[in-house]
């Protein structure tokens, strides 16, 4: 391709190609995060590998230029094919290697290098297509395209489209450039003609079928993951698959929501709701979890109208259990995800658990970031500050590693402490993992809490059926405050489960002082990754 292109056309192409290239990169970083968790590592490594391989691409151009009789069309076709299939490839590899792990991680990072390398070769190609070889001008437009892509991905593409669709349509854009060059340059060789035709057909197929194909891929991936996670029977995951199905799977601007149903006869039957990689609700412990959490909230309160804040808890189930006690005067639910809350409000299955509590006049909903909300509240003057009798963290798990860890930081717990009335309590669930517990305790101490009350839910029928041990703990809870206290007034309208729990545990569990464990508290400025629970 020895022709040149008019400058205006060339600059538009430059912007589009740079745009595609950065979107591929961010797409890969996000896909790897969704598969493996740990966004900091994924994004940092993606940036580094991408820039590095782009550099290699630029350097390699001079080698390829002569040997391959330089052909931008070929490059764009390869790049668009890679871009359109890469997300599918990653999920397929992740599916196959779910129990192997490292293989898909390596392949994922290799793909970043391939796309970076190909994108790197584009720039010198474009410079060669300019009659005056204006390198800096083309580079400047390349950076503008990159900035567009870096803004469009998080603000437009990621919140509104699936990762698969973004990959396919951005690759299509890449292919359109190849097509344009093809029409403009009219290459002689049959190779280009056949390639363009075949790739064109491929994209027609992709546009038509990618969404059903991606649903299939995601479904198989999630079913296998679920089967591996909840396998009490000890049989192979393959035997469990016929008994489970994905009921619903969608993404909100903040998280992936997925509901899987285990058919009767499988263990445990019922629905499981996942938020990203963490299990949020399972039918077989939904009541014991929320009834224990609400009981712990109400146990240490006086006989007065109670003002309670819930961080997360957008499913409304905990609110329903709290509202059964007439002392509860106000509940502020601070949950960032409006789309998830709306879904839960209207879902027939979960309605039986939350009883439309979100529409109760005592409930105020703030669709805001809990961290920012409490930071602002804690920094207000005392007169303007809202003080709560209890603040409950009903948040998704920490399996993703980086996404939610600021909500368990020294800073966050300090804002919580500052927003509590003098004898108010903070309640959260936690993992059994020992180092996770230790960091959590140390962080609470650093945030000014002095006492701890540990509890767990353990009298459910389910614990007998599925865990074969009536005493086995299903969920673990921590209550923290700044002054030791006894239960003050008996919570009212207790369920049978709660009455049994009180009889069994009231004398057994006791407040204990928070001790300095000599480890580092978890801070937003200096994380302690032991907070993240280890894999089983």
């Amino acid at each position, binding site marked *: 391709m020895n022709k040149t292109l008019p400058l205006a056309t060339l600059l538009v192409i430059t912007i589009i190609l740079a745009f595609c290239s*950065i979107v591929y990169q961010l797409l890969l970083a996000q896909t790897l995060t969704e598969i493996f968790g740990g966004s*900091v590592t994924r994004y940092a490594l993606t940036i580094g590998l991408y820039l590095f391989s782009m550099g290699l691409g630029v350097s390699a151009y001079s080698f390829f230029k002569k040997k391959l009789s330089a052909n931008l069309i070929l490059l764009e076709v390869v790049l668009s094919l890679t871009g359109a299939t890469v997300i599918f490839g990653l999920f397929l590899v992740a599916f196959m290697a779910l129990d192997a792990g490292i293989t898909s991680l390596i392949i994922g990072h290799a793909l970043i290098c391939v796309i970076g390398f190909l994108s790197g070769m584009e720039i010198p190609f474009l410079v060669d297509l300019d009659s005056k070889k204006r390198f800096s001008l083309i580079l400047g437009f390349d950076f503008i395209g990159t900035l567009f892509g870096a803004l469009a991905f998080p603000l437009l593409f990621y919140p509104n489209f699936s990762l698969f669709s973004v990959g396919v349509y951005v690759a299509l854009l890449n292919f359109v450039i190849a097509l344009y060059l093809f029409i403009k340059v009219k290459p002689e060789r049959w190779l280009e003609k056949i390639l363009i035709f075949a790739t064109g057909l491929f994209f027609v197929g992709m546009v038509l079928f990618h969404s059903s194909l991606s649903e299939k891929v995601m479904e198989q991936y999630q079913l296998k993951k679920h089967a591996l996670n909840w396998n009490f029977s000890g049989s192979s995951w393959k035997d469990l698959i016929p008994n489970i199905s994905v009921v619903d799977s969608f993404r909100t601007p903040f998280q992936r929501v997925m509901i899987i149903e285990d058919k009767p006869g499988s263990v445990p039957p019922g629905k499981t709701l996942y938020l990203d990689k963490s299990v949020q609700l399972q039918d077989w412990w939904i009541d014991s979890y929320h009834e224990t959490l609400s009981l712990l909230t109400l146990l240490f309160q006086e006989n007065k109208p109670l003002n309670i804040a819930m961080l997360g808890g957008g499913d409304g189930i905990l609110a329903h259990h709290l509202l059964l006690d007439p002392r509860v005067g106000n509940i502020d639910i601070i949950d960032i995800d409006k789309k998830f809350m709306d879904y839960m409000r209207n879902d027939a299955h979960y309605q039986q658990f939350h009883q439309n509590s979100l529409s109760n006049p005592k409930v105020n909903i703030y669709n805001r970031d809990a961290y920012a909300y409490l930071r602002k509240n804690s920094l207000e003057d005392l007169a303007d500050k809202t003080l709560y009798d209890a603040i409950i963290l009903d948040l998704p798990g920490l399996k993703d590693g980086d996404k939610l860890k600021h909500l368990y930081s020294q800073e966050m717990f300090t804002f919580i402490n500052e927003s509590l009335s003098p004898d108010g309590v903070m309640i959260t669930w936690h993992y059994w993992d020992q180092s996770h517990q230790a960091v959590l305790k140390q962080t609470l101490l650093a945030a000014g809490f002095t006492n701890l009350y540990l509890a767990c839910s353990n009298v459910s029928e389910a614990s007998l059926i599925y865990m074969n041990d009536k005493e086995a703990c299903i969920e673990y809870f921590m209550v923290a405050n700044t002054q030791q206290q006894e239960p003050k007034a008996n919570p009212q309208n207790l369920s049978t489960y709660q009455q049994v729990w009180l009889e069994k545990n009231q004398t057994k569990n006791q407040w204990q002082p928070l001790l300095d464990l000599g480890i580092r508290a978890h801070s937003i*400025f200096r994380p302690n990754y032991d907070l993240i629970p280890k894999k089983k």
Partner: protein
Amino acid sequence: MISKVQGFKSKTPVVVITILMAACSIIYELVLAQTLTALFGGVVLRYSITIGLYLLGLGLGALYFERYSHGSADRFFRTQLILSTLGSLGFISLIFISGWQYDFPWLVWAYAHSLIVIIGFFSGLEIPLMNALNKNKLTQTLSLDYLGGLIGSVCFPLILYPYFGLITTSLIAAFINLSLCTYLAFTFKKPTGVKVLLIVALVVFLILLINQETLIEILKNIYITGTLNGY
């Protein structure tokens, strides 16, 4: 013009300096991306925008060099000094502002994003400057620069951020930039006053690094309470 530039005589300083400076640049950017994530939430948004603005800054720096600048040891020296200052004081002042001006999050937001572009700009400028000092062996300079960037982006998530945290990491990177400055000051025979000042600055950084726990506590306190109470 370029042929007159006093360059490095041996290859070792070129390799070491190019790799280190590239690693420092990307580490500053990752520190800022993670700080923005911590302050405002939304990992995808923060990292994406940081990458975009960083590359924009890099491009602007390279373009500026081509139009208005030329290679000189002096300019390279100054760039390292500016990056060291921006990376350390720029970052620390960001925490101060986010503590004191909590009512104006947009101010913190704007400040952090300007830092990303400005650090990107000087990082973009340092590459052609280094290239000039490396007798215009562009491919070699660029390869070393990419390698440094890769090393920085591997070290940040796996070692620096988990074990040292954001504040100490920014200090370590700034300390490395400052050490490069000091080395350049001796190699290119800067006035004695400059050398002494640089050594004093290095000692100050060392003291800060040794007492990092205290510094972190002070900054945390400012951020949490919005005041200097207790210090």
